[in-house]
């Protein structure tokens, strides 16, 4: 195709003779154009794929650069110090990290069992025609923007908790030694527990949909064998389905955890934004993302801004590890199913 003087076999075979030279030159031109567009397209797609990598490294590098001032100023104490005082320019991340971890733990403690039970319902009990609608409805929970959870949490959920749930919690655990500290103090409505509960609702669809997907991938033969031995639905779920899908379920849980750790708006509305570590989960606290969302535009001074970006770096670091672990587990699962 490079040399128009050559006579391709196809021309001879199809037309029973030589093709005029002009036609061959034209064809060579078209082919060249196609070749160029082919190569260009290949490189464009490759460049776009590399842009994804550039975005990630850009995020990491810009966060490191932005937080350099704070990190070099405070060093390791930034991580363990829980004072956050813009007036004296004394900053530490401990209170925010603590709040992030505690709200996420509360969220996972609720979302994991509930999500797994919903997945069992969807794969074992639910009539076929209801599976898709219920599955979609649960997934729509994930589609509701987080700011809606925030406004709903602040105006509807928090007052409800303050009036009906928190007083009961305080009274019930008043005399229990360890739990009385955990549920101490006046019922504010907003606070760590409220934030954790709202996060639980937000994470629920992630845990549910991944667990359902891996539950559905269990070979029917395994379940049928167990049912054939006389096992109950619960026993099949607990001793056959769950062990078989363990890796996938854990991957799904970690994915949900990654979401919970980084969730911003819903938490910002209901956490109360108090920079202190409190033993009671009813008390107001703060999380990394809520601190950034609340204070970033109002931060004056380079050190303040830099400390907030350092918080962002810590958050990205934590979520990166959690999400990477989740992906590795799900990848291992896919390799096993595929292979």
């Amino acid at each position, binding site marked *: 195709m490079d040399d128009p003087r050559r006579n391709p076999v196809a021309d001879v075979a199809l037309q029973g003779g030589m093709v005029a030279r002009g036609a061959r030159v034209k064809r060579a031109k078209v082919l060249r154009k196609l070749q160029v567009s082919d190569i260009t397209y290949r490189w464009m797609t490759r460049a*776009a794929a590399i842009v994804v990598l550039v975005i990630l490294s850009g995020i990491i590098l810009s966060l490191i650069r932005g937080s350099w001032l704070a990190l070099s100023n405070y060093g390791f104490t930034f991580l363990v110090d829980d004072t956050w005082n813009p007036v004296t320019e004394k900053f530490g991340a401990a209170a925010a990290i603590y709040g992030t971890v505690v709200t996420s733990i509360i969220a996972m403690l609720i979302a994991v069992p*509930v999500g797994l039970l919903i997945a069992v319902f969807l794969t074992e009990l639910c009539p076929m025609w209801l599976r898709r609608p219920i599955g979609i409805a*649960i997934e729509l929970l994930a589609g509701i923007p987080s700011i809606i959870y925030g406004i709903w949490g602040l105006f509807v959920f928090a007052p409800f908790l303050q009036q009906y749930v928190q007083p009961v919690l305080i009274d019930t655990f008043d005399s229990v030694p360890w739990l009385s500290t955990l549920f101490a103090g006046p019922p504010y409505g907003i606070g760590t527990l409220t934030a954790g509960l709202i996060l639980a609702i937000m994470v629920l669809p992630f845990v549910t949909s991944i667990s359902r997907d891996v539950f559905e991938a269990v070979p029917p033969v395994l379940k049928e064998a167990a049912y054939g031995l006389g096992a109950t639905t619960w026993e099949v779920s607990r001793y056959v389905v769950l062990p078989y899908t363990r890796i996938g379920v854990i991957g799904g849980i970690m994915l949900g955890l990654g979401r919970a750790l980084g969730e911003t708006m819903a938490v910002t509305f209901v956490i109360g934004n108090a920079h202190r570590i409190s033993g009671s989960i009813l008390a107001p606290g703060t999380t990394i993302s809520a601190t950034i969302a609340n204070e970033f535009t109002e931060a004056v001074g380079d050190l303040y801004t830099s400390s907030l970006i350092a918080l962002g770096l810590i958050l990205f670091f934590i979520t990166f590890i959690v999400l990477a672990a989740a992906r590795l587990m799900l990848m291992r699962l896919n390799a096993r199913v595929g292979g």
Partner: protein
Amino acid sequence: MALYDTRRRRNNIAMGLSVGATVFGLAWLVLILAVLLWKGFSGLSLAVFTQMTPPPGSDGGLLNPIMGSLLMTAIAVAIGTPLGILAGTYMAEYGRYDKLTIVVRFINDILLSAPSIVIGLFIYEIMVAKMGHFSGWAGAVALAVIVVPVVVRTTEDMLILVPDTLREAAASIGLPRSLMIRRVAYRAARAGMVTGVLLAVARISGETAPLLFTALNNQFWSLNLNAPVASLPVVIFQFALSPYEDWQRLAWTGALIITFAVLALSITARALTGRKSA
């Protein structure tokens, strides 16, 4: 017999719990939507779509944040979609078994669930801090960074589902690879790829965190992308936390608009793929 009873009782309890869990999960959806309708619907009027955000204590609408949101979403999709489709194309068509593809897929999955506030900080560092002021462009780029991983993921998944026989048929009649991808593979995967874009739009139209310190907010009518631009989620954030009752009412109305727009988008997206797989 006692053992049998225990097992049966245990099974009944567990199954009861799992039905209960499902009802519990669905209840939240119903509760949230009901409250939104109840609180937001009363404020819904023509003025919401024709007037600017008011100062506290007077009447007004949400025209400028709605326009700002539409504008930034459109630009974000215009930047993010081609990029995402090209990257997804490389991963599914050219380099399906490349090392690069494996790395990009992994990184992309992490970006997919990365905290959006961190993306806001990133754009603040590279655009707002450099330019010295908040701008609509920065907001749009921040949203585009969220669009890319969603589109990459769906494009790759959908292209991989296209049967290889189609590709082989196209190649056998002499179509060059790039044409084969554009004319055959894209067409076969179109419904799924459109779904990806719709999901991305649904995702960014409710995003607040990355706009807080990129596009900021603007009380007045402005489509100048070099200046701060109002957006629906940020206005909801500001109005909901304000002590003024009419602002809070507008926030609920805005919340209602966003939620139903987002839910409509996700349901459309699902309907598109649902019909295809059925």
